[in-house]
């Protein structure tokens, strides 16, 4: 680009900026190359005035003039991309330049500014630039370039060892004819290949070997933004993270609540037992006709009638079953029934035996062993079906001990399940009682009665109204025990003793549920407090 003689713009620049531009103009740009130099710089900025050169540069220039007698040609950095020139001679061409490349190289034009280039370069000035040549000739470099080809003391076409070491190895492609077409007349202006033409340009990101730019980490913020940031940082400092162990905070009141509830329940049940309170009214028999049916069936048994007692009780619910079973078995023993025990649960025979020995050891039938333990009937529903079909043919646990219960002469009249005058199923859960009802529905014309825990009653109650009738009567829970003792006009029974404790326990449970429900409602209705720093910290 031709430069126009203009007024020196650096006169108004400060000294430091002037010195900086002077250094930029004197030192060839590293890495970027001349073609990447900033184009918006004023032309005068790249041409420092000779009178402004420092003394050391003037000395170098003087020595140079003494040795060479002329100024070296510039590398075309001032002329830039608009006035390319080419290396004419083949000996000045890059190493390994092929003849085909020479033939295909288009003629290159020599800018005006390189008229004073060393003899190695031949001037070919295009006609289009003849008019500008006059202006170009006035441009003379005012500095000593760091590298000029005419003063390089190396033979043309022979690269020094250090340059050969820098050159890429054999893995890189060599120059071919296409380079001339692709990059007509472009001469490398920097790097180890400076001065060579027809060089394949490296990718910008690959060729960039300088250190990565260091950007400032400081944000350029306005004063207002800085104030906002300060307020935000202050808010973050005041806000504490949520409690670390949330589960621990939840578990502690739950554990305390558990202890309180257990204590209240324990005391409410223990108090009537200790004081032997009998203030609670007994249940009304009119409300429980199924219990009255059980009483009537047992009360109508003739003396010595065989009664099968299926004792399907788990140890966990034995405490609830015990007062009820005592009431029923006591009634049966009073009627001098011949009791035959069996169970489809392994724990059933042991619990039945314990109850008999603890509660009825004074009864002659128990004391003399006038009852029969058939033992445990393993096999679930299949075994139960087998026993109902053929009681004598069923496999019982007592047989494994070498004792056949059916050898007892008192059981001789019993030939089938229908030989029993009554079947009483004492069950702690509904499934066992249901199995007896369903498996014996078609075989037991007289049906059976169930003595169960309170949790089994709702399910079994549906069988009370079946047609044909499969369940003749039902007594359940502590309530049933108290009711049955009332029917028998029995005083001092275990059911009556437990009835007050049951009443107080139910009352305590009701109270706890109501208080807990109200507390839950209050917690939900309570508006949330605004979060303060102290509350967030848990202080």
């Amino acid at each position, binding site marked *: 680009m031709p430069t126009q003689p203009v007024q020196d713009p650096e006169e108004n620049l400060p000294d430091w900026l002037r010195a900086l531009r002077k250094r930029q103009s004197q030192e060839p740009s590293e890495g970027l190359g001349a073609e990447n130099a900033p184009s918006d710089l004023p032309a005068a900025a790249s041409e420092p005035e000779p009178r402004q050169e420092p003394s050391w540069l003037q000395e170098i220039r003087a020595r140079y003039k003494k040795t060479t007698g002329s100024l070296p040609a510039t590398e075309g950095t001032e002329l830039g991309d608009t006035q390319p020139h080419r290396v004419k001679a083949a000996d000045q061409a890059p190493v390994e330049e092929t003849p085909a490349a020479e033939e295909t190289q288009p003629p290159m034009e020599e800018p005006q500014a390189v008229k004073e280039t060393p003899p190695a370069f031949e001037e070919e000035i295009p006609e289009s630039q003849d008019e500008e040549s006059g202006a170009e000739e006035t441009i003379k470099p005012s500095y000593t370039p760091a590298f000029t080809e005419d003063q390089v003391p190396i033979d043309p076409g022979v690269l020094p060892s250090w340059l050969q070491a820098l050159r890429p190895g054999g893995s890189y492609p060599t120059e071919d004819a296409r380079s001339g077409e692709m990059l007509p007349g472009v001469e490398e202006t920097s790097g180890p290949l400076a001065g060579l033409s027809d060089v394949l340009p490296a990718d910008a990101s690959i060729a960039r070997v300088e250190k990565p730019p260091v950007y400032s980490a400081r944000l350029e913020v306005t004063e207002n933004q800085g104030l906002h940031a300060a307020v935000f940082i202050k808010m973050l400092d005041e806000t504490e993270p949520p409690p670390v162990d949330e589960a621990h905070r939840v578990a502690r009141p739950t554990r305390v609540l558990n202890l309180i509830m257990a204590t209240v329940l324990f005391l409410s049940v223990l108090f009537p037992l200790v004081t032997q309170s009998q203030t*609670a009214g007994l249940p009304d028999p009119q409300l429980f006709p199924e219990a009255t049916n059980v009483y009537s069936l047992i009360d109508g048994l003739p003396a010595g009638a065989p009664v099968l007692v299926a004792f399907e009780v788990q140890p966990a619910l034995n405490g609830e079953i015990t007062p009820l079973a005592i009431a029923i078995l006591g009634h049966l023993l009073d009627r001098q029934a011949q009791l035959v025990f069996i169970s489809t649960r392994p724990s059933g025979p*042991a619990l039945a035996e314990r109850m008999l020995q603890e509660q009825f050891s004074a009864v002659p039938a128990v004391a003399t062993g006038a009852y029969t333990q058939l033992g445990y009937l393993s096999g679930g529903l299949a075994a139960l079906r087998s026993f109902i079909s053929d009681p004598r043919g069923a496999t019982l646990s007592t047989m494994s001990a070498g004792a056949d219960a059916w050898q007892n002469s008192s059981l001789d009249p019993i030939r089938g399940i229908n030989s029993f005058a009554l079947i009483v199923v004492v069950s702690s859960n509904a499934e066992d009682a249901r199995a007896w009802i369903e498996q014996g529905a078609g075989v037991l014309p007289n049906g059976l009665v169930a003595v169960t825990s309170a949790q089994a009653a*709702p*399910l079994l109650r549906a069988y009370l109204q079946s047609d044909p009738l499969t369940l003749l009567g039902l007594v359940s829970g502590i309530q049933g025990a108290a009711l049955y003792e009332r029917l028998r006009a029995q005083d001092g029974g275990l059911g009556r003793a437990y009835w007050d404790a049951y009443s107080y326990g*139910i009352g305590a449970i009701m109270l706890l549920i109501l208080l*807990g429900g109200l507390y839950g409602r209050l917690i939900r209705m309570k508006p949330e407090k605004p979060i303060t720093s102290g509350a967030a910290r848990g202080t």
Partner: protein
Amino acid sequence: MNLRVNTPFAAAVAIAAGLFMLASLFIPGLEEPRNRVLNWAVLLAALAMLLGLANLFTVHFDKVRNKQQPAYSAVLILAMLIAFGLTVWEGSQAQLPSWIFNNIQSPVEASLMAVLAISLTLAAARLLQNRNDLMSIVFVMALFILLVGSGPLFGIEIPFFTSVLGPYVSQFLSTGAMRGLLIGVALGTLLTGLRILIGADRPYGG
């Protein structure tokens, strides 16, 4: 040694046994062979329980050998061997096996049930706090009616609840619900039996 039967033979045996048991309920004269087959099933069930015992022993013995909480497994194996040995040696009605049952097993299970009662009370008390919707309120109301209707509270009887409302809920509403449940169970059992009889379900393999 893997003795798994994976041929149609297993399915044929199972289907034939099921059809025979079903037919014996309707055809007179088949009671005796039916009871014999049922006794086979009872013996197989007893053997299966022994196999379960052996499997339990093997699992916990491996835990002791691999030191995976060996103390608990060692206690379990020791208790199992003592109870099993004493019961086999003396019989289930003997003094020592009865003492073990009455003084160890029964109190432990009763204690667990007592803990369950407290946990259920706590759950009911916290129900409205944790889940405050319509069904929770209905559940708590039904619980309230049944508990009040089951007997006097603190020795004080509330007439309307114990004589009218409580019996109505426990004897009519719950009975209706249980009948529906039982009908569903019966239909499911019938369908399961049919699927096994036609070979659609083969839980025994084959």
